[in-house]
């Protein structure tokens, strides 16, 4: 039964290979992309069900026993992240049908999307640190190519910054892995969790912890390591921006979560948690201030990603079960809401022909339903009840007050006012005010030119993700029970170790 862990990795690999074999049949690419991701969503939901009822699943690749071979492990945390990935993969596959032009499709857009999803799923499911590095690289190289597909000057310029900083982070990761192996003699996460408390080299462990912190900090775009993100995320086609915005930084957050709650637990981890607390405050504030200053819709949303990462890191650093549950719910809510906002910004751009908020307007007057669809994730992100963001922030802030981090709690609340402000800014500028080009141009060229199939392909993902945000809000309880059990499981390493190594420490 534990073989199901392989499927979220194998499915996208197989679809990508088939697509590359039939490289001229773009219609087949489109079909396989949607069908493959839909299947992945089904499989990941089954896996989540299995993990919830039967405990942590683990699979030893090639039959090599745990500390020697590569282990794949699906606990609640990994399963939830894989479900979120599959959901975003599915909606992005649909959205791509309406937005990606033929040239990009001929240059392997669809297979690259599948390989990106494979890398992300692999990173979530692996139980081995070096294997995590490999999955990061799979994910990165697909994202590099997706980022430059099209070859516009600003894309190349953004990609330069993205590629350079990510390669730097990979080389730091590699160095950290090397030192860790030198001290502990193993790279299996469960085995490390057993051995690290017994090791002598506490000073070297701190070095390793800080190196991992820097690596994952760059991936997750934590202050002061986030500068690559707003420089590159607004350049590619919006379907690509959306999947990057939703998933890639969260892989970094997941890695921090895994590393500092399951693997590296020792006295020096307390230092990392202190560091994370301080950095989370800066991340929240700097991200949102950056967003407030912007008039380009995608740049505004890109800065928001950073600010939201701050909340997740804050909750992670508190380390109580409630806070971890809050962080996890926050991640899932944010993946859904943020991707949705990017989809909507793409649609608005299609309607009005510009990303600049000052040049567009009047969307609400002619497309009132789109206005409603925008308000769901926008208010959700800002934390207005009863949408998902309210519960996410509520739990994080409750955990913050319980652990007496009053200053950070007040910063978090202040930042959410600014978040609301910047969402209202998009609403006012793009939806509410009259079109600055005058009434004559309101019946827009853009929308009429899109074929009705493409309209459906662009609107359906927005509706799906919007309804997920609403469902999270109105039926919060069952979802919170799931993330809570994930948090409890994460903080008790015994189960994880037993599932992988077959013995309790």
């Amino acid at each position, binding site marked *: 039964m534990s073989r199901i862990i392989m499927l979220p990795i194998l499915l996208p690999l197989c679809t990508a290979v088939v697509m590359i074999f039939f490289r001229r049949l773009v219609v087949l690419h489109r079909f396989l992309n949607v069908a493959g991701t839909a299947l992945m969503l089904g499989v990941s939901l089954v896996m989540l069900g299995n993990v919830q009822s039967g405990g942590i699943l683990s699979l030893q690749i090639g039959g090599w026993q745990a500390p020697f071979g590569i282990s794949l492990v699906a606990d609640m945390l990994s399963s939830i992240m894989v479900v979120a990935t599959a959901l975003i993969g599915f909606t992005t596959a649909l959205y791509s049908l309406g937005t990606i032009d033929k040239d990009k499709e001929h240059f392997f857009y669809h297979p690259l999307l599948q390989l990106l999803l494979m890398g992300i799923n692999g990173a979530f499911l692996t139980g081995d640190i*070096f294997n995590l*590095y*490999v999955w990061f*690289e799979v994910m*990165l*190289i697909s994202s*590099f*190519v997706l980022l*430059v597909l099209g*070859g516009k*000057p*600003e894309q*190349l*310029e*953004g*990609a*330069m*910054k993205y*590629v*350079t900083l990510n*390669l*730097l982070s*990979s*080389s*730091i990761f*590699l*160095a950290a*892995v*090397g*030192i860790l*192996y*030198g001290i502990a003699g193993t790279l299996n996460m469960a085995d490390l969790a057993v051995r690290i408390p017994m090791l002598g080299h506490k000073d070297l462990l701190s070095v390793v912890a800080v190196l991992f912190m820097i690596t994952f900090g760059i991936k997750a775009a934590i202050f002061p390591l986030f500068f690559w993100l*707003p*420089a*590159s995320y*607004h*350049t590619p086609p919006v379907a690509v921006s959306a999947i990057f915005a939703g998933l890639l930084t969260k892989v970094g957050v997941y890695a921090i979560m895994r590393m500092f709650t399951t693997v590296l637990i020792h006295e020096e981890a307390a230092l990392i948690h202190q560091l994370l607390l301080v950095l989370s405050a800066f991340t929240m504030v700097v991200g949102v201030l950056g967003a407030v*200053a*912007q*008039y*380009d819709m995608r*740049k505004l949303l890109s800065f928001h990603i950073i600010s939201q990462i701050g909340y997740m890191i804050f909750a992670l650093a508190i380390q109580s079960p409630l806070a971890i549950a809050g962080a996890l719910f926050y991640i899932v809510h944010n993946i859904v809401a943020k991707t949705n906002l990017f989809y909507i910004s793409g649609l608005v751009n299609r309607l009005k022909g510009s990303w*600049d908020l*000052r040049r567009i307007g009047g969307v609400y007057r002619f497309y009132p339903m789109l206005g409603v669809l925008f308000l769901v994730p926008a208010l959700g992100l800002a934390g207005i009840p009863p949408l998902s963001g309210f519960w996410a922030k509520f739990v994080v802030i409750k955990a913050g007050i319980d652990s007496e981090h009053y200053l950070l709690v007040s910063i978090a609340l202040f930042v959410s006012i600014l978040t609301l402000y910047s969402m209202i800014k998009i609403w006012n500028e793009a939806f509410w005010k009259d079109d600055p080009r005058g009434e004559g141009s309101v019946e827009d060229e853009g929308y009429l030119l899109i074929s009705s199939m493409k309209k459906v392909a662009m609107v359906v993902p927005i509706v799906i993700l919007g309804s997920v945000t609403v469902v999270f809000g109105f039926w919060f309880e069952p979802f919170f029970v799931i993330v809570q059990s994930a948090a409890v499981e994460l903080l008790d390493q015994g189960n994880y170790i037993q599932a992988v190594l077959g013995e309790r420490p």
Partner: protein
Amino acid sequence: MTFLLAVIIGVLYAAGTYLILRRSMVKVIFGLIFLGHAANLMIFTVGRLTKGAPAFVPEGMEGFTEPFADPLPQALILTAIVIGFGVQAFTIVLFKRTYQTVGTEDLDKMKSTDQLPGEEL
């Protein structure tokens, strides 16, 4: 031998760090390559050096009797080299295309993606 390798790793890290801080694209690429090599050598060195004892069980024996070179760091490095090779090849092509499209190789001049929209208008 360990000392020599430690010195080489240090030099590679120093040179790599210096080079990625330069403004010229080509130097940044070399910097990234140096950092990759430094990390690979570091894994090799930190994973203990054992001279002249490959990890093969001698014929007619059940297992090892004497210290042998740990094959795992070598496997890790091999993987890292292959990945690094692919990624670096991509980076070089990307930098070349960027140079051709943007028309400059001074990184300080590539700031259009960071400008506020007011400056572009």
